[in-house]
């Protein structure tokens, strides 16, 4: 992978990074291959009839939903990030953390929060009721699915984009201010270049999340008219045990989604700015300020209300019951240790891949290194769980013993694209700004990391640790076949309670889970805050 760039030929820098990145990408691709072949190589006693699936129809429907989700989430994310960046107020970081907590909370929890606000028996209805009016809107249907997805993904986008805006160097702001840029010009000339590099990576993730969404789509879809290919794959495995059919559908999903996201990743604009930051104050016009307050207000109403609803419902009758149960503390301990392990793994993988990717000059090589991490999101959960189960059995290890390792690996891989979407643009920006200096000082890869990149990436590293941690609190879907009774995490405990009529307990666990993820996102912003502002 040599580039024609003469400057690059002159320096041996980056060889180790390229090898590491390529090796990791290869390993992830190989793992996916192993999962698929494990399933295909098994011959099963008594597999029943195959199902009929209208593939083109499902692909089209799912793609429309996912595309709408992506566009709306990115728009909401940009607007919110912009408003949060402009309005400096105490508690801003905490608020940003609250938004980010949404994406890692179990999706169904958020969906139920949404219903608690907008549903027939929801707050909005109650509010209308105060004035003797009747709320007749329904949250069920395509718009309900989109709303839930945008709350989950848009808030996450806002969190990531905010780190980009906060990283705009004070020098740029100073120049902008001295030129007397209008709010619109300021956004176009200063903010947009900082954001643009992050949008394709974020968009790809959001598209994939929406494309493979399952329980939320069914819950809010209002009937089988709204569904995703993921549902069909699930049904092929569970209901019909048609493994070959399931693998084919999964491959179709893989091919289709790769075709969609590969160009997005390939054409990522290389205009990222940033790398250092300072609390530079550039007063805004009253108009822009009002707009920012308005956007934030809307964001609070739309995004935070469902989360507040989850907290309000949870911090009630079930709470003491849950807090005094041994199962809860066991699950908390398991969740914390799994979470921390995979957060570390996520961080290492993301660093290896991102540093490797940015050391390549050719966009194609960059795509090749980055893509495998994303494809992991496309493999349906039910296929992953089958594949992991069979792969582990193939090695002769008892599934129950391997469960924690599989969970840590699977969760780390799941969080990986998110981590890369955070790290990639930030690294590019640093490269742009400091590559020359680093070259002229003849820094080794390690020195460059230690003295240039790491100090400038504190916020991103904190965010990645939080993401990796919170994702791993997520569900046990990947080890659903492994034997889960002696190994419970908080989300699993919640679904278990829900499945046994204990809805108060489930609501309490959901609220506690949300608080935990909130703290996980907020802590790093405190800890990692200040190296750069000093």
């Amino acid at each position: 992978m040599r580039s024609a760039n003469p400057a690059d030929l002159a320096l041996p820098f980056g060889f180790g990074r390229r090898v590491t990145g390529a090796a990791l990408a290869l390993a992830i691709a190989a793992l996916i291959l192993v999962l698929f072949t494990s399933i295909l190589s098994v011959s099963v006693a008594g597999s029943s009839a195959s199902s009929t699936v209208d593939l083109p129809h499902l692909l089209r429907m799912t793609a429309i939903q996912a595309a709408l989700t992506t566009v709306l989430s990115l728009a909401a994310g940009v607007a919110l990030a912009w408003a949060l960046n402009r309005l400096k107020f105490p508690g801003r970081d905490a608020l940003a953390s609250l938004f980010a907590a949404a994406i890692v909370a179990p999706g169904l929890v958020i969906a139920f929060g949404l219903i608690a606000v907008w549903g027939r028996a929801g707050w909005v209805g109650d509010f209308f009721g105060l004035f003797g009016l009747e709320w007749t809107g329904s949250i069920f249907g395509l718009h309900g699915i989109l709303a839930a997805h945008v709350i989950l993904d848009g808030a996450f986008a806002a969190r990531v984009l905010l780190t980009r805006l906060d990283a705009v160097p004070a020098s740029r702001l100073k120049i902008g201010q001295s030129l007397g840029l209008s709010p619109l010009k300021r956004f176009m000339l200063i903010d947009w270049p900082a954001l643009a590099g992050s949008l394709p990576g974020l968009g790809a993730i959001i598209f994939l999340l929406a494309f493979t969404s399952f329980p939320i789509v069914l819950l809010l879809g209002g009937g089988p008219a709204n569904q995703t290919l993921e549902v069909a794959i699930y049904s092929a495995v569970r209901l019909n045990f048609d493994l070959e059919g399931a693998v084919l559908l999964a491959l179709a999903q893989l091919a289709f989604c790769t075709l969609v996201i590969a160009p997005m990743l390939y054409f990522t604009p290389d205009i990222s700015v940033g790398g250092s930051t300072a609390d530079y104050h550039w007063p805004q016009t009253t108009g822009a300020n009002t707009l920012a307050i308005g956007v934030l207000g809307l964001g609070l109403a739309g995004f935070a209300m469902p989360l507040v609803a989850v907290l309000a419902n949870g911090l009630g009758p079930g709470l003491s019951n849950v807090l005094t149960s041994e199962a809860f503390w066991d699950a908390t301990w398991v969740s914390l240790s799994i979470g921390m392990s995979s957060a570390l793994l996520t961080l290492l993988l993301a660093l290896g891949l991102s540093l490797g990717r940015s050391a390549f000059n050719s966009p194609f090589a960059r795509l090749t290194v980055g893509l495998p991490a994303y494809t992991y999101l496309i493999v349906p959960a039910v296929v992953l769980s089958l594949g992991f189960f069979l792969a582990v059995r193939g090695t002769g290890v008892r599934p129950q013993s391997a469960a924690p390792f599989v969970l840590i690996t699977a969760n780390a891989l799941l969080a990986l694209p998110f981590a890369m979407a955070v790290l990639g643009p930030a690294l590019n920006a640093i490269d742009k700004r400091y590559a020359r200096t680093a070259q002229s000082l003849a820094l080794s890869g390690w020195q460059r990391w230690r003295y240039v990149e790491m100090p400038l990436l504190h916020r991103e590293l904190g965010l990645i640790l939080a993401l990796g941690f919170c994702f791993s609190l997520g569900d046990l879907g990947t080890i659903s076949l492994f034997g889960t009774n002696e190994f419970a995490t908080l989300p699993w405990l919640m679904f278990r309670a829900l499945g046994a009529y204990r809805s108060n307990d489930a609501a309490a666990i959901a609220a506690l889970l949300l608080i935990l993820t909130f703290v996980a996102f907020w802590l790093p912003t405190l800890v990692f805050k200040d190296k750069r502002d000093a």
Partner: protein
Amino acid sequence: MFRLAFLASALVLSTLPAAAQEQPTLTIYTYDAFAADWGPAPGLKAGFEETCGCTVNFVAADSSIGALRRVQLEGDTTEADIVLGLDTAVVGEARATGLFAEHGVDTSRLSLPQDWSAPDFVPFDYGYFAFVYNTETLPEPPTSFEALAGDDEDLTIVIQDPRSATPGLGLVLWLKAAYGDDTNEAWADIAPHVLTVTSGWSEAYSLFLNGEADMVLSYTTSPAYHIIAEDDDRYAAAPFTEGHYAQIEVAGILKSSPHQELAQDFLSYMLTPEAQENIMMTNWMYPVTDITLPKGFAPPVPADEALLLDADEVTANKNAWIEEMLGALR
């Protein structure tokens, strides 16, 4: 890091050959709710271990179908001696795998919606699918599918997807058993009342409890939980004149099990009054033997109103019937 090291050593230890054990271990694959702390498993384990001179090990998959799938994947090398929790809708498929042995348990005195003579599966509890409603907000619930179809459009129900949830499949079978060739029209008539079709029972039930729908597809025994465990008597199951579809939960012994006798003893134990009482009060289903129902448990549907389709017929037509339902609701 310490934690990782700990996990690593645990892995190494657990892959070593087990130290010579004095007593046999009976491994039972079941669904998650059955094995949960508040489910029947802990009581059954304690009760059986008192006399069996063995260790009972429940291994929970996420669902009963998951447990069956795992055994199918493992084939002869499975650790499982028993698969517990399959229901009448998948029994035909389980039988077709050829993995299950004869149980040799006397099932002649069971009291079930229909006579049970299957040599390979032993029933341990049963229930009926029904629509549960809140008596305070819906004083006059519909009394049949027909009445439901003709009711005010505002009357909403939540049901589950037959591809991912047991009750969802149960409703497909219920309508088929009640309406036969006219099922398609029946679905179409009900469709306007369906608020949404969730992937699992929990989501649907939560929607109902939160007041988002008037009725939810569940079991005739669901109100018993609220009455007995929560002292809340607002909820009831609506009796439908077309009858109610039965769900019988069964357990089967695997041919590959080296502990055939022990497994048979366990299945016999499942039918003792002690075990039946435990299952009833933790799984919230009817006992399969004649033990007294506690106050709060509505008596089972009269035998002539119980619906149940032949297991082989279900296996053969399940997909077509599900397609019919999805088509009608789309």
